[in-house]
């Protein structure tokens, strides 16, 4: 087993222990908790918070991927080329708007709960995927595209069989960035009553309990590192197969 795989396994073990057996860490966190106060977050199960957190991120990322890739396909076709600058501007503005403001604005419309968080995560996920998909789709090897046209593939066939598979590694990089951003951003969703791991961190902040903050932060961080790594490996595998 390589050192990298050993490290991966170690981090995965740590994450599972933190989520499923938080009591094991009581001795470690006690010095950080207020004297006599609770050390381990127990108001709701860390497992169900984790699943809900990941679920929100997954839902928002799938939606952002669908929209961003569809948009990128459209603006890289001859018919959509004139929309390219406009769509770039819009997604860039989406990125500069602070997530907290998005939450605040979305609550009156969607109410408390997961809704506003999903909207915020979705908007923040768009840009990296969109930019990467545009880059990938507009820098395909010209000889391969010419051959695809030359053998009689129609537009759809070229898109599905050649363009998207070849663009996939770079699009995946965009998705990876956006998922990692979403994993972190989702924590603030707990300020508007979405069930995420942010709940643990916010509870820690409200009660001056550094142990809670660290516990929540560690779990979110480990999820981010492991998911990032898994997706990066998938990209490397796909890129290698395409002679990258």
């Amino acid at each position, binding site marked *: 087993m390589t050192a990298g795989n050993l490290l991966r396994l170690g981090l995965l073990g740590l994450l599972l222990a933190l989520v499923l057996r938080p009591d094991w860490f009581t001795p470690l966190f006690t010095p950080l908790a207020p004297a006599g106060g609770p050390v381990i977050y127990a108001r709701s199960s860390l497992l169900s918070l984790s699943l809900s957190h990941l679920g929100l991120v997954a839902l928002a990322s799938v939606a952002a991927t669908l929209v961003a890739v569809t948009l990128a396909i459209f603006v890289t076709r001859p018919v959509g080329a004139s929309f390219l600058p406009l769509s770039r501007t819009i997604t860039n503005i989406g990125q500069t708007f602070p997530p907290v403001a998005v939450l605040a604005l979305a609550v009156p419309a969607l109410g408390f709960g997961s809704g506003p968080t999903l909207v915020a995560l979705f908007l923040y996920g768009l840009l990296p995927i969109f930019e990467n998909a545009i880059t990938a789709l507009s820098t395909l090897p010209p*000889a391969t595209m010419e051959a*695809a046209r030359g053998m*009689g593939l129609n537009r759809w066939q070229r898109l599905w069989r050649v363009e998207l598979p070849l663009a996939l590694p770079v699009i995946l990089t965009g998705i990876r960035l956006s998922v990692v951003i979403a994993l972190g951003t989702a924590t603030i969703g707990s300020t508007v009553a979405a069930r995420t791991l942010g709940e643990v961190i916010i509870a820690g902040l409200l009660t001056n309990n550094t142990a809670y903050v660290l516990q929540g932060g560690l779990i979110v961080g480990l999820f981010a590192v492991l998911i990032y790594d898994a997706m990066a490996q998938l990209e490397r595998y796909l890129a290698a197969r*395409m002679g990258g």
Partner: protein
Amino acid sequence: MIEIDNITKIYDSARAVDGVSMTIDTGTITVIVGTSGSGKTTLLRLINRLEEPTSGEVRINGQSTLDVKPHILRRRIGYAIQGHGLFPHHTVARNIGAVPQLLGWSRDKIDARVDELLDLFSMAPQDFRNRYPSELSGGQQQRVGVARALASRPDLILMDEPFGALDPIIRTRAQEDLRRIQQALGSTIILVTHDMEEAIRLGDRVAVMDGGKLVQYATPADIITHPATDFVADMVGDVERPLRLLSLTPLADVIEDGHASGTPLPPDANLRDALSACLWTGRSAVPISDHGKVIGRVTLDAIRARAEVHA
């Protein structure tokens, strides 16, 4: 029969192809030769409508290519693109089988065809079938590109410098293979090259292009003996002329009775091979043998007579 009728392609004021007309007989190899930028690739791409003509048209068996949907037209025309253009995410087998698959051939038929083509190009199927293009040498990639163009047995095949990346030995063999395959299938091939040697060796007819114009369209022998312009004469090369001419005549044409000593040559070798053999071994004649039986000889005098006719 393919009729190219006064076809012109203008790119913002540059005339890439300028009023080219030529008629190509079914079942022949036509080689388009010219210097870089003379419009060879553009002419080829006008035939399968990867490029739309500014004026003029192409007719295949009397039907204008403008009457067919471009992607349908292209499925009937094999195209080996300059620099192979293989799909990097597909194996060799999937690359070669791409057009048959589009045409709805069965799995078994495609697999058999892929193996047959790999064999034809001297690439062992069990070694190469499942490789990705990045795992091939440049010459192997190019051969797979040509195999892909031949896969569905199209009646018309366009090839853009298909042998550019091959070393001289493999190149000669690939040219012979192509000749053999073309004669066996009776396909019509239009092949682009900038190598006059290749044009003369492969072409039933040679089309010489210069600055977008077709300057001569004739048999290889005519191109050598009666170059239409100085440019064509330059392409053929003064020094090379007699040798190129000799390379067009098979020994079978000038065989005579009589004895000669030394290693024999086969009747389908050409006069240039015989001349070379005479000079190298100091003989004044070489025996010709067909399947191990000596059937006559070719003399140095006969070779000289052939080369001097055009003085």
